[in-house]
């Protein structure tokens, strides 16, 4: 069965405290060189073959992501 991945990330202008918290935590792990982190959501969908691109974009844009605050990408594996 086809697998579809939808990745959702906060829009650049929206503060991402989770990403910031990770950036702050990294030095404690002794890790250097990570400049920025953004945290978003990752969805893996198992869909029937007849589910078309439009439907996938509706799912992403109307449910999985909130266009007011988030951008998203859809890709078939």
């Amino acid at each position: 069965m086809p697998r579809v991945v939808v990745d959702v990330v906060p829009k650049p202008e929206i503060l991402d405290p989770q990403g910031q918290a990770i950036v702050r935590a990294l030095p404690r792990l002794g890790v250097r060189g990570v400049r920025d982190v953004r945290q978003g959501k990752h969805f893996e969908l198992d869909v029937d073959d007849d589910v078309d691109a439009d439907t996938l974009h509706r799912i992403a844009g109307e449910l999985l992501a909130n266009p007011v605050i988030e951008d998203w990408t859809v890709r078939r594996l």
Partner: protein
Amino acid sequence: MSTVRIGVITFPGTLDDIDAARAVRYAGAEPVSLWHADDDLRGVDAVIVPGGFSYGDYLRAGAIAAHQPVLRAVRGAASRGLPVLGICNGFQILCEAGLLPGALVRNAGLHFVCRDQRLRVETSATAWTGRYAAGAEIVVPLKSIEGRYVADSATLAMLEGDGRVVFRYLGVNPNGAVNDIAGIASADGRVVGLMPHPEHAIEVLTGPSSDGLDVFRSAVDAVLGSGGQLLGRRIPSKMW
């Protein structure tokens, strides 16, 4: 004078519906419970979308509830001026459903925050704040983890410009909300959403104050027409 009937919607995962209903009773109105799967509002005079974790707030707070049949009915009624109040999860749902602009995201501090929060009531010109003097300071509980209000700059300018910011955090900004925004209104002032819980501040026995009761009394006034129609007109002018 017939008693005012105020609907309280229950979704799976709604928690503060019993509290909203209690507040409605304390305000002298009759609470009418509405089920998420129904698409008729049983002729109520106003609607409260209460707090809680509808559908566990999975995906995004309010995202799944916003697609329920009852919301369609609420959208229709709101367009005809029905007073609607979204509290906490209810506010998140109204934003997700597009009845109010902007969105509510994870607290800047990442933790769930439960505290007695000072607020300023910025306007009395809404269906839910007529009993307050603009500028009044109140204390009501805040309890949320996705309570940070955000909106793009154009929307913010519009909200501020049209006096649609109804409640603002005072003292501490508990979640990083833009412009300390705790609650906003629709253009006609009939639909109001806020993160703090006025229904938990209706008696000092169980709340930090009774400051929240006038939110519900205001709706009763609005329904009974004391300035009910006025509101629509007064909104745009920035008298505060």
